[in-house]
């Protein structure tokens, strides 16, 4: 579990929605950092065995922090910056698509 060393004050935060829950997170953070700081450790389940995963490298190399962000699946949480009103859900297994 992770947390901010010093909780950012309201002027520094934006609100994102994770799995239907509103989270106040530090502006400028990556989605992965913001979720970890909010106590989220499971980001996705794998397409092979559906086992749970969280971030491993935080530098864009491992693809373990994949999330569905603003309706687009399989995005790297550690490479995308949070923005006000962003909606994020866990990536469950293989990405869903709707033909």
């Amino acid at each position: 579990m992770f947390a901010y060393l010093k909780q950012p004050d309201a002027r520094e935060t934006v609100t994102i929605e994770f799995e239907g829950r509103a989270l106040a997170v530090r502006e400028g953070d990556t989605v992965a950092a913001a979720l970890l700081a909010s106590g989220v450790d499971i980001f996705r389940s794998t397409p092979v065995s559906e086992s749970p995963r969280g971030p491993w490298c935080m530098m864009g190399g491992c693809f373990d922090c994949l999330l569905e962000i603003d309706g687009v699946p399989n995005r790297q949480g550690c490479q995308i910056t949070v923005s006000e009103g962003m909606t994020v859900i866990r990536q469950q297994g293989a990405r869903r698509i709707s033909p």
Partner: protein
Amino acid sequence: MRTIPLAIIGAGPAGMAAAATAARYGLKPVLFDEQPAPGGQIYRALESTPLRRPELLGEDYWHGKSLVQALRDGAIDYRPGHTVWQLNRDGEVGLLAGDRAELIRAERIVLATGAQERPFPIPGWTLPGVMGAGAAQVLLKTSGVAAQAPLVLAGSGPLLYLVAAQYSRAGAAVAAILETTPRENFRHAAGHIGGAVKGWRYLRKGLSLLKELKRAGIRHEHQVTELHAEGNGRLQHVRWRTAARPDVWQQCDATTLLLHHGVVPNVQMTRALGGEHDWSEAQLCWCPRRDSLGRSDIEGFFIAGDGGGIGGAKSAALQGELAALAALASLDLLDDVALHRETAPRHRALASELAIRPFLDALYRPGDRWRRPADEVIVCRCEEVSAGEVRRVAKLGCSGPNQMKSFTRCGMGPCQGRLCGLTVSEILAEETGQSIEQTGYYRLRPPFKPITLGQMASAADGTDYGQRQQQGSTAVVTEKASS
């Protein structure tokens, strides 16, 4: 296709120093970097970190300030948020910025793509809560985010101690450091003590970090021989055994386990370009071939920094300067006399920076068991392929990583072998009795980073860099259908 004279890929110390050097000679280089802000991993978020107390991240971190500032004076065309997804020997560079893919050409390219953490496959390393120590550093630097107790660090190497020290300075509790350095490493490292004495500043820093950890009262276990991360759906505890008490499994609750076995060159691009790579037995990694000026064996390509072999931030910056000078000379912007005048002092400085490396490499060399794990351990995190599966196909007569890929999908997930490549080469070499050079590495394929079909299609229109127009689907000439 637009052609630029000099592209630099990666805005860490090597790339930033290369850009500054080229700019000093009046050439405006284009510096492409995937991250939104400069610094690479070592100086990451230097301009924006919420941890402004200098002593918290340490003086080595703030050393990057001048390099970062140089990017802001307009002499360098610095392009953050640009992912390079393709490169070829003709100098074609595939870029992705936002949702737009494009192809440009560069006459000279400096690859400054840095290092990544060595894979650290242990039972349970895929559980949420188990991360690389480097990841914890990124969180700390960019966001002021730290792991909460109970936290365990395991592995070896200076970064492990640095993270522990930074955490303890920030008031975050570290439950234990589980040191995996085998006993024989101390004996082997002693053989390189001469270099360590030359690099006494690094040695002193390391010793003072250890002292700091001791003062902070952090439990420090030595010669850990086995390590398991365990938990139901997420990390709950860590179990280990040590050489001193080989019969006793010890256990500690943990919600975060940070693993570290040093860093290795990021060879995704040099491999995809088909450059020669040599196995470094000292650093246990592949190093792309380059000369003392960073010239690779591919014409027009230069390699600077840890992407060519691990030397640390200061030597990376020196190598960046050298590579830029070599690139300038190859563009006839610098004559031989000036080249020699500029490079000689940098070569001396580099030699002194690197003096301690053999000592560090020997001391922090991960033992065999950590690099070639037991059968049940997952080696390919993406496709969830175990070490046993790799051994099984080796016995079927599969002698190299590329053939194995076809059998098992190992290395074929989105990380493209970044987290299993070294492990697989080492396991296959052991199983087949071949040398690791004979065994080889994955043949890497573009795109280096996943790019969407829509983005790829956007590269089809062939309009010039920066002059793209919206365009519908283009008629396609029918060629003979394939199988």
